[in-house]
Structure formats: structure tokens, C-alpha cells
């Protein structure tokens, strides 16, 4: 379009009405009468009231929620739909010797029964594909599925699961992440080590920093496993069409990743999978597939759509949880409370499978020093397999755990040194242009302003 040799700018297109000629075949007029049009800036200007910032907005789905008209996955029913149940191992670590599904298959109303051997590619995961859809050889936590049933009612499917006989040979089990790091510990995934991801950050010279310190504080903090407990349990409906295309209605937030995992496990091109995600509470726990490939194989076998709904118990035992952390903090401080050196060692209980552990590990390690200037730092983090429910994404990805540790230690330092807890934080907190543990220059830093404002609002001075 820039035939006249002039640079084509957004302002010129608007001011000279050039957009009108974008679709015309004739030559562009060489001159245009200037028109009295104001060109809106592309971005809001300082102090300008926009149509969004500071305005009240209504959720687009609020009315449907209030009327009870929002259709969640469990509210959908397809013609001929069957109900699935998954048989859970109930044992934390074992070899599967034999699975007998004959009694279940013989039950009236049971339309399909499958085990891990029926899944085309029986592994998935957002980082490492280390999790089976249904455990076929080795059970690594009690919530592992070992078989699945589709039946005309949920009750029949549940009864059929009870009739499936699984013979196990118990294997050693580890429930303590620190113990799992020992070289001679039982290897849960038969790999060289139970540690499956590591991150180490080094900044400055910690030996020098500790040597300069007036006091050194050594503390250990631990946090527990937490389940997301979305009000809506994990639910999915799978439906094959006659052309071999699969439609999946599922409580999954990350639909593109889920499609990738589904096409991998089912051996289908991604173009043959349509995934409709509807979520009633996620919090990080509904970011990957779980029962969907098993339901798809059941549906294929039975020739009918299949719905699966986790029980509340399965939500706790067979969906991801928040990582328990063991956090060792060693911090050297000057008399005035300034942090001169810090070493952090984080051990994340990764449970039986990786899920989003690598992401959690990275964020926790980077944020482990807190919003404080620590020139001499070593932060190292390890995530290890244990025979527990797998841990994955949950709000904050590891940030809340380390926050609990560094703020707890800050309080202990303040109390020991006789410094006001607010003052010691103001002395250490990031300012504009501060450098993060990974060397990033930080902008828009308002830690001190936020602390001061919060202290004013709740009357910190009068309380202490």
C-alpha cells in the first residue's frame, strides 16, 4: 500500500482514511483531503480514565450461576451414556502379579472392563511422562487406578470394581522425602535416584557473608500436603463418533495440554480429539488429564459414551495435591538485622509422579530468599519421589511454602535481636532496581510502601 514511498503508520491510515482502499483494486489516490479526526493513543495515558480500570465489571457467567443454569460436566447426559468407576490399588507400593476381571465382566449391566494393558500408551504427564493412566505392573501410591469398569449405572460399576481381584506383591515403600533422598533408599521408579528434578541458585560468596555476620540462625520448617478440594469433583464424559473422532467434556483448565496428553495416550492425531473444558473450581488441580484416556478406551470397547465422576475420596487420593516441603534455612545477619548471607535447602515431597513438580521446584527455589536483599545466597531445591499421592500445581506453585519459612525465620531473628518485626523487614526489603537471586533487575517494587501502608491500616504501631 505504501506506493507513494511514505512510511505507512497507523496514524496515517486513520487520518487519511487509507483503510477504505485496502480492498479496492484501483490505484490509491495520491492526495487526500486532511480530515479533522483525533487519533486515539494505542495505550491509555497516565491518569487517564479508561473504560476498564477502576470500573465495576460483572462476571459474564454470574447470572447463569445464580439461576442454577450453568451446565457443568456432571450436568450433561448423552444418549446411551454409561457410568465408569476406577478400581484404586489401596496399597502404596506393590508389584501387580495378576488381575482377574472375569467376575466383574460377568455381571449384568457391566458393558466394559479394562486394565492398564488396554491403554495404547500407558503414560502421561506435563513434564515427565512418568504416570500411568492405570497402573499395569507397579503400583506407586494407594490412589493408583488398576482397572476401570463401565456399566449402565454407577452402582453396578462400583460393585463390579469390588469383584475385580488383584494379586499384589508388596514392595518397599517410602513416605519421608528426606529418607527418599538417601542413596540406598528403595528406588520408586527404578531409576538411579529418587530425586527427579533439582535447581541450584548461587549468588555472591556465602562463606564470606557468614564470616562477616554477627549472628547465624539455623532453622528448619516443614509444611503439609494440601488438597485443592474443588467443590466440583474431577468429571469427564467421552464420546466417539462413527468416524473415530473423540469428543471429551472434562473438568480440565489446560485444554491444549490435555489434548496433547490424550492423543499421546490414545495414539490418535490431535485433530481427531475435541476437548471441551468446563471447570467448577480448579486451583491448579485440574490442569492435566486423569481418568480421560481410561474412559475413552471403555467407551470404545462398549460402543457408548461414558461418564466418570471422582468420589470425594478419590479427590484426596487420586488427584494432585500441594507439595509438602522440608525447608532448611541458615541466615547470617548483622547486629542491625541486615541479612548478610543465606543458604536454603528445600526438599519437596513429589509423591508418586512428577506432574507439575518441576515448575513448583523452580519457582520455590527462585523465591526462597524472599523479597529481601541477600547478596550472598545459595538456594538449592530437590524434588523426590515418595509412595504418596502425587503432588502438582496448586495456587502459588511453591511460593507459599517458602514464604512461610523465610517470614517465620525473619520473626525469629527479629525477636532474638530485639528488633521490631516491621523494622527488620524494612531494613532488608527490595527497593526499586533491586537485583533478584537470579540476577534480574526488579522494577515497580513497592514492598516497603506496601508494608508501611498495611502497618498503618491495621494499626501496627499501637498494637506493638
Amino acid at each position, binding site marked *: 500500500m505504501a506506493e507513494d514511498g511514505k512510511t505507512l503508520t497507523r496514524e496515517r491510515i486513520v487520518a487519511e482514511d487509507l483503510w477504505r482502499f485496502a480492498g479496492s483494486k484501483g490505484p490509491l489516490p495520491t492526495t487526500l483531503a486532511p480530515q479533522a479526526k483525533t487519533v486515539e493513543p494505542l495505550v491509555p495515558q497516565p491518569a487517564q480514565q479508561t473504560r476498564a480500570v477502576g470500573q465495576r465489571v460483572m462476571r459474564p457467567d454470574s447470572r447463569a*450461576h*445464580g439461576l442454577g443454569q450453568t451446565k457443568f460436566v456432571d*450436568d450433561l447426559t448423552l444418549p446411551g451414556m454409561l457410568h465408569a468407576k476406577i478400581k484404586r490399588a489401596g496399597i502404596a507400593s506393590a508389584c501387580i502379579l495378576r488381575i482377574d476381571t472375569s467376575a466383574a465382566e460377568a455381571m449384568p449391566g457391566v458393558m466394559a472392563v479394562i486394565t492398564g494393558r488396554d491403554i495404547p500408551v500407558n503414560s502421561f504427564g506435563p513434564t515427565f511422562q512418568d504416570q500411568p493412566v492405570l497402573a499395569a505392573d507397579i503400583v506407586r501410591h494407594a490412589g493408583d487406578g488398576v482397572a476401570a469398569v463401565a456399566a449402565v449405572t454407577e452402582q453396578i460399576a462400583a460393585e463390579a470394581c469390588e469383584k475385580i481381584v488383584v494379586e499384589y506383591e508388596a514392595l518397599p515403600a517410602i513416605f519421608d522425602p528426606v529418607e527418599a533422598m538417601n542413596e540406598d533408599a528403595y528406588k520408586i521408579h527404578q531409576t538411579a535416584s529418587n530425586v527427579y528434578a533439582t535447581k541450584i541458585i548461587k549468588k555472591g560468596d556465602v562463606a564470606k557473608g557468614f564470616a562477616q555476620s554477627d549472628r547465624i540462625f539455623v532453622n528448619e520448617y516443614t509444611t503439609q500436603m494440601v488438597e485443592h478440594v474443588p467443590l466440583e469433583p474431577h468429571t469427564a464424559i467421552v464420546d466417539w463418533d462413527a468416524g473415530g473422532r473423540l469428543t471429551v467434556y472434562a473438568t480440565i483448565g489446560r485444554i491444549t495440554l490435555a489434548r496433547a496428553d490424550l492423543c499421546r495416550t490414545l495414539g490418535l492425531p490431535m485433530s481427531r480429539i475435541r476437548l471441551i473444558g468446563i471447570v*467448577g473450581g480448579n486451583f491448579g488441580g485440574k490442569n492435566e488429564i486423569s481418568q480421560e484416556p481410561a474412559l475413552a478406551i471403555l467407551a470404545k470397547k462398549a460402543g457408548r459414551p461414558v461418564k466418570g465422576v471422582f468420589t470425594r475420596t478419590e479427590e484426596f487420593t487420586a488427584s494432585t495435591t500441594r507439595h509438602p516441603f522440608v525447608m532448611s534455612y541458615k541466615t547470617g545477619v548483622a547486629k542491625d538485622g541486615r541479612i548478610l548471607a543465606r543458604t536454603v535447602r528445600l526438599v519437596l515431597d513429589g509423591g508418586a509422579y512428577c506432574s507439575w513438580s518441576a515448575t513448583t521446584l523452580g519457582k520455590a527455589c527462585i523465591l526462597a530468599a524472599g523479597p529481601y536483599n541477600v547478596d550472598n545466597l545459595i538456594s538449592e531445591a530437590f524434588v523426590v519421589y515418595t509412595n504418596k499421592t502425587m503432588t502438582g500445581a496448586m495456587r502459588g506453585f511453591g511460593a507459599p511454602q517458602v514464604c512461610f519459612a523465610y517470614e517465620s525465620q525473619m520473626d525469629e531473628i527479629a525477636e532474638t535481636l530485639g528488633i521490631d518485626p516491621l523494622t527488620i523487614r524494612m531494613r532488608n526489603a527490595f527497593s526499586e532496581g533491586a537485583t533478584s537471586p537470579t540476577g534480574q533487575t526488579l522494577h515497580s517494587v513497592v514492598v516497603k510502601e506496601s508494608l508501611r501502608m498495611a502497618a498503618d491500616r491495621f494499626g501496627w504501631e499501637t498494637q506493638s
Partner: protein
Amino acid sequence: MIDVTVTVNGVVRKASVPAETTLLTLLRENFLLTGAKLGCDVGDCGACTVLVDSQPVNSCLMLAAQADGRQVLTIEGLAPKDGLHPLQKVFEETGALQCGFCGPGVLMSAKALLAENTNPSEHDIRDALAGNLCRCTGYTKIVDAVQDAARLMRERSEPRALEGAEHG
């Protein structure tokens, strides 16, 4: 099979169901009223709350047969034909529901509270909603919304009360 006759949202409905059928299953699967949700199936979460003879119940714990001959109000029956119930209006305007899964149960418990107490304190509201779990909101907006709805309902009913008109 057991025959049950229930008045649901003002309409007499009949069904023949297995004896173990819960009121929740009757509503969702026989009457296709999917507003009440199954969250825990053991009476902990309150997502299945409906009103039976104006009292909030966990419909996952009540058998369909126990509701025989009684009046059931579900979220689908809360709004009048010409608009929204004040609770629905305020919940919509203030974004008091996020994912929405707990909403039908919360609104029905709130409806039962406001029928008995037109000016509830925060404590009254938290007490009445103690059986309705929500993981998104932290409850603050829900409690505020119930209080706002109560105010709106008082404002609407007071002029009529002065005229001696019936309200309810």
C-alpha cells in the same frame, strides 16, 4: 421400585425409582433439574442443598421416598417469572460467586435464612451458611451479598407492609 409424588417448584411431579434413590438423584436424573450439585455425597459440602417444606436439606442424604408428598424448592424455582430473586440479583452484581458450583446450595440456604430473619447479622449469615462450603470466594463476598439482599428485600417489602399488603 417406589412411587414418589413431590411438588417441585410448584409443580406436582411423580416418579418410580429404586428405593435407594436420593432426593438429589431424583431431582437431577428423573426431573432433569441439575441446579443442585453432587459435591461430596456425604452431606459435608452443601452443594446439593434444596428446601423441603421451606427447610434447607442436603438432598444427597435424603431419600426420594422421604420427600414423598412434600414441597421441594430448588434453585430453578427461586426466581419469579418476571425477574431475579433479590439474592440472585445481588450475587450477580457483586460477583459473589466465582466458579459457581456451590452457588445453588448457598443461595437456597440463604433463602431459608432470610425467610426467618429479615435482618441477619454477619454471624447469623455465617451460621446459616456453615453447611455450604466454597473454595473460591473465601466467603466474604457471599456474606456481604446476603446482607445486601436482605436490605433490598426489606426496602421492597416495607412500603407494601405499610399499605397492609401481603408479602412473602
